[in-house]
């Protein structure tokens, strides 16, 4: 059976059921409550905040991104099933915004993960976020929201940029970084327990 025939219907369904990963990285996280609650009410578009990246379609990156959160963002992004879409809020994700000379804010989010829609502003009002979401829906309908395909096709380039910033093997390194300190705490707790016994 040719699934191509069903594509418009599938795209319509995708457009009308965007589930969001609520990974509020920056100040834009505070714009989410008014969007979700009765005043702007995003749920009428079939969107809802979702606790697990494994079930999400839309990744909202709300505000500035530090290298530390970028590591988590990349991992979360890769955990999402295809198709996945990214909306980046605020000028910080475009060029660093007011953090343009800060050592700890990413200047261009585009270089590390692909972005479908940018919403400029510091912070964007909920109206402009809604406008961005409208745009996102249009793009899904005419099939131009292809960031997840771009990520697959140009994975070497994205990986090169990520490795340049974090160093080779950053995933393992990050996981191992806290182990010595956790072990120390465990040993200390064990000693105290022995003392108490």
């Amino acid at each position, binding site marked *: 059976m040719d699934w191509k025939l069903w594509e418009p219907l599938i795209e319509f369904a995708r457009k009308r059921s965007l589930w969001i990963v609520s990974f509020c990285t920056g100040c834009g996280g505070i714009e989410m409550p008014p969007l979700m609650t009765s005043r702007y009410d995003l749920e009428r578009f079939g969107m809802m905040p979702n606790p697990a990246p494994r079930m999400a379609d839309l990744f909202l990156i709300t505000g500035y991104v530090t290298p*530390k959160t970028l590591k988590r963002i990349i991992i979360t992004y890769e955990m999402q099933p295809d198709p996945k879409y990214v909306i980046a809020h605020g000028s910080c994700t475009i*060029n660093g915004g007011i953090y343009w*000379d800060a*050592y700890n804010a*990413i200047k261009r989010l585009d270089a590390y993960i692909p972005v479908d829609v940018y919403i400029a502003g510091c912070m964007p009002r909920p109206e402009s976020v809604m406008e961005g979401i409208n745009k996102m829906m249009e793009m899904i309908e005419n099939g131009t929201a292809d960031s997840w395909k771009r990520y697959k096709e140009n994975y070497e380039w994205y990986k090169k940029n990520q490795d*340049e910033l*974090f160093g080779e093997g950053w995933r393992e390194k990050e996981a191992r*970084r*806290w182990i010595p300190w956790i072990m120390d705490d465990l040993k200390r707790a064990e000693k105290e327990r022995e003392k108490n016994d």
Partner: protein
Amino acid sequence: MTDYEALVAKILEKAPYAEGEVRRERRIEFRISPDRIRDFLKLLKDNGFELLLQITAVDWPDRGEIELIYQVFSITHRTHTFVRTAIPRDNSVVPTVMDIYPVAETYERDAHEFFQVVFEGNPKLEMPWILEEEDKEAGLSYRKDFDMLGYVKRKYKILDRFDEDKGTYVI
């Protein structure tokens, strides 16, 4: 209302090594030498200054010193207190006040990471805190002689558009 002049005089009577003044209502200020910081903060805590709010560091390259400001709050006397002390820039070592105000551990780690001030007696100074490994290796510091903008340009590989006209930075 508290009589702030009397309060400062009372503290100074017990600690003759300090200098103190009232800046305005609800703000008093003391200056002491760094080797008496523990004695002085112990004295403050015994006299109703319950909370340590923050330890801030200020770098003064022209004076060659780093100024540490211990902000202490008193609920009893309804006043905010600054305890200022200055340590030399090239040998920035000061005793910890962790055992007097336990919350000092956090702020000492902070000042250690960004201003390289060593607090003798704080066991957690070397524990990972805010900075990433690569920032630490690059020697990132909030001291004035560190070229922060150059470091940012190198780290994020931003175009050198800032240098076209030094007066007005264009992003």
